[in-house]
């Protein structure tokens, strides 16, 4: 697997999609329901990528927007919020009826297990065998047999349901903060983030804030996207709007209500996308437009009040091997003593 070792991967969302996404790629969205990487999703749509395969845990807007834009034609899916009422024809339903998308139905757990197996480099992973009694296992879509199988537990001989491991080409992920190397730190409901991100061959990361590496190093337990897996870092305030992000903003029900209302018919959704996706160049223009339409106080009302986590103290004595006077308490000698000690004991080699 390719490691991304550059020390500064900052770029715009546009550059990131242009450089790292190809038509026909498979991908996964590594935030589910909360902190959704919607700025990156909008950019993917504007870039006009086609024939993508999406591994989607649970969706609110992403799947419908990507389908309406014609970006994806295959979908491995566990859950997708359906809005607009019985009479509506949201993009997923329409695309399935018209045959422009193939859908593979999974459960939340088995879809994530496919990705976790991929992330661990395992060919397959056991899941909960009772699922074998359902149509999720009995019916299959475009993945056919490359999904569930029955294996024998080598220790008991019992039949165990397993899923095949997958490694999507890329992941889109939004986090609270990252350093320029791409050490992405996320907190709040973790849901699918860790395994979805680690399953991908590369992670395109957007962050509310770029911070110095020293901030990252003081809280390594919060790093979910390790720099070596991250190919691009995009600084993007409000990058998850209208979903919520812990420590930054609440979900925007008013904005979402208008989006949901547009889902009923293709023309109304197209108008919504023309305004909020195609009609703006990037997230900054999107925010300017938001303030024009809803007023800045509507946006400000979404901002979080602080509820900081108790800090994890990573402290020790931090006593160096050699103290200020050049002595080592552990060895009971000074650095100068050390050299003569090595000589005395014939431990030094001369060429």
């Amino acid at each position, binding site marked *: 697997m390719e490691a991304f070792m550059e020390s500064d991967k900052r770029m715009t969302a546009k550059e990131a999609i242009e450089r790292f996404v190809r038509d026909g790629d498979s991908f996964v969205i590594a935030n589910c329901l*909360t902190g959704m990487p919607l700025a990156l999703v909008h950019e993917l749509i504007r870039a006009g990528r086609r024939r993508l395969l999406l591994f989607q845990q649970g969706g609110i807007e992403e799947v419908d927007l990507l389908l309406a834009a014609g970006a994806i034609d295959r979908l491995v899916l566990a*859950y997708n919020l359906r809005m607009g009422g019985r009479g509506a024809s949201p993009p997923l339903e329409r695309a399935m009826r018209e045959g422009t998308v193939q859908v593979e139905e999974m459960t939340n*757990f088995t879809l994530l297990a496919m990705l976790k197996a991929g992330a661990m480099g395992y060919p397959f992973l056991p899941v909960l065998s009772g699922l074998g009694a359902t149509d999720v296992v009995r019916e299959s879509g475009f993945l056919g047999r490359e999904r569930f199988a029955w294996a024998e537990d080598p220790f008991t001989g019992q039949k165990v349901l397993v899923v095949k491991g997958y490694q999507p080409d890329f992941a889109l992920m939004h986090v609270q903060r990252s350093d320029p190397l791409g050490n992405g730190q996320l907190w709040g*409901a973790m*849901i*699918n983030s860790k395994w979805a991100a680690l399953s991908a061959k590369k992670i395109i990361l957007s962050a509310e804030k770029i911070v110095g590496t020293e901030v990252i190093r003081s809280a390594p337990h919060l790093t979910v996207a390790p720099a070596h897996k991250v190919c691009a870092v995009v600084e993007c305030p409000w990058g998850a709007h209208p979903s919520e992000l812990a420590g930054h903003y*609440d979900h925007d029900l008013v904005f979402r209500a208008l989006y949901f209302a547009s889902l009923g018919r293709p023309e109304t959704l197209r108008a919504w996308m023309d305004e909020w996706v195609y009609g703006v160049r990037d997230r900054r223009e999107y925010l300017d437009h938001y303030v024009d339409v809803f007023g800045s106080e509507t946006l400000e009302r979404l901002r979080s009040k602080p509820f900081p986590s108790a800090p994890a103290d990573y402290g020790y004595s931090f006593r160096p091997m050699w103290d200020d006077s050049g002595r080592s308490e552990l060895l009971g000698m000074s650095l100068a003593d050390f050299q003569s000690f090595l000589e005395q004991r014939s431990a030094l080699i001369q060429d």
Partner: protein
Amino acid sequence: MAVKFTLDELIVCRAAREIRDREIVVIGQGLPMAAGILARKTHAPNALIVTEAGIVGMDPFKIPLHIADTSCCQGYAYGCDMFDVFTSILNLGYVDVAFLGVGQVDRHGNVNSSYVAAADGSRRRLTGAGGAPEFGGYAKRTVLTMRGGEFKETLDYLTTPGYLDGGDSRYRAGMPAGSGPTVLITGKAVFRFDPVTKEMVLASLHPGRSFEEVASEIPWEIRVARPLETTAPPTQKEIDIIRRLAPDISMGRSLYAEVLAARVLSILAKSQRKT
């Protein structure tokens, strides 16, 4: 004075009574979340609320928008992830009760939340499986709630195992012994399941509902408990708690949508007056 309540309040209160103190409870958004909150504020203050997003021990002060929405609580006891919830919590048998919403249900409590067949042979997609199949399969008890769904002799798609073909078929298919749906709460009635045959039994009618109108929506001859009871109404205390924490649930989905739409229009109007 007689207590006045909405249908959704009745369902939430009835569902909350399925939770016992010190139980581990998996809940989703909406009605089940309101039931969980209510139970913690009344008879089950030590119930541990879990969502599949990896939020364990949440104490919401309002209804979350979805299962990963932590804006409804200030912190929680254990932040793990979805994989942890399904393995080290569910698969190890820690989940006492799981709440599931229903699109279609059959006589053995099997559930469809994936596809509904239309008259022209096409399929309308519901939300999809989500976490329901594993929770319904592996929680000790499952509480089913159905608003706007339907009873079917044969499901259009089997998403979540109830008692499969009845009797012990569920356990032969690998689900834990003794597990399964214990109750189905609809907008009109409450159903339980026969301990041996595992067939659905009408247990109580909601106030004002008749047996005939309930039976007319069920395509098989529904078995009826004797005596057939009336679903216990909420107490004033329960209603006060629900309205304070979850007025959006109290009023029901369509009224809430109406109120929300009016708010959106007024915000838009206000902002356009300024510009």
